[in-house]
């Protein structure tokens, strides 16, 4: 490929300082993407020398053998009139031509296959890159759709969170309620115990005091009298029981 510094642009050449292409790029405002591919085969050439168009040109007038007769006639004419001079260079040219034609006939297909393989590898690499890009992009699209679907569920998320918070508040409130009742009950129990204690102490003290006063009020005289009375009662009882028995 050759780079040209062009100044004029005729109708077909529209690019400045870039690679020329028969499929002209950027000529119109429409985009030619994807770029059309290269043609498969080049222009047909017969015997490797003469383009096919020459044969097609002469076919209507002279048929199939016309160009060959023309070629033979021209050759004979140039030889006879010494327009083409036969000298040592002719033999050089003939031997070179033989070797070249032999080489081309023998190694042509293998070289063509090798070049085709190189091309194939290039195309395969580019295709790989393109496929990779495509898969990654489709993956990205799927991820994006999934994220969008996730966003739709955020109302449910907030409901769950609200429920959680409400439950926390409820449990806290109930705990504190329990604590309050326990404390109040403890204080009230204390007051009850205190009152019980008071009553018991007063009772005991009163009983002790009454006992002490009664005991102290028993004089010795009365003691003797009560003892004598008891003995008398006992004797009487003994008599009655003895009598009964």
């Amino acid at each position, binding site marked *: 490929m050759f780079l040209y510094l062009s100044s004029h642009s005729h109708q077909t050449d529209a690019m400045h300082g870039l690679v020329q292409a028969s499929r002209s790029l950027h000529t119109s405002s429409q985009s030619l993407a994807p770029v059309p591919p290269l043609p498969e085969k080049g*222009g047909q050439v017969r015997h490797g020398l003469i383009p096919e168009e020459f044969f097609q040109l002469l076919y209507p007038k002279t048929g199939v053998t016309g160009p060959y007769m023309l070629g033979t006639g021209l050759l004979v004419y140039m030889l006879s009139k010494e327009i083409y001079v036969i000298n040592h260079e002719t033999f050089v040219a003939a031997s070179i031509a033989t070797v070249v034609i032999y080489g081309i006939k023998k190694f042509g297909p293998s070289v063509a296959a090798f070049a085709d393989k190189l091309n194939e590898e290039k195309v395969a690499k580019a295709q790989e890159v393109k496929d990779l890009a495509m898969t990654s992009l489709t993956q990205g699209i799927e991820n994006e759709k999934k994220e969008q679907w996730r966003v739709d569920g955020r109302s449910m998320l907030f409901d769950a969170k609200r429920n959680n918070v409400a439950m926390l508040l409820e449990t806290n409130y109930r705990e504190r309620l329990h604590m309050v009742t326990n404390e109040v009950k403890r204080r009230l129990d204390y007051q009850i115990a205190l009152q019980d204690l008071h009553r018991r102490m007063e009772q005991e003290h009163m009983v002790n005091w009454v006992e002490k006063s009664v005991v102290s009020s028993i004089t010795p005289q009365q003691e003797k009298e009560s003892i004598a009375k008891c003995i008398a009662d006992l004797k009487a009882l003994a008599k009655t029981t003895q009598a009964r028995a």
Partner: protein
Amino acid sequence: PVPVADKRLMDVKLGELGSWLGGRDFTPNGIIAAVRRGHDRYYNKYINVKRGGIGGITMLLVGYVAISYLWEYDHISKKTYYSSMFCLCL
């Protein structure tokens, strides 16, 4: 109808050839553009393809050989077998 100078060569009638030649662009820019067009036509037809054949370069080489023979014709035609300097020019 297109003016004569803008027609392609194959569409020019024989009588209009002179005026067609006169109307062509012979400035240096024009010549360079014409050479470039010719190169592009040949290149895109025979070389810039997926599976080019041998004809693409052989035609160039044969043309080179023919042109160099043409330029050397005067010199070669003088070297006949009976000229005096033949043994030296060999």
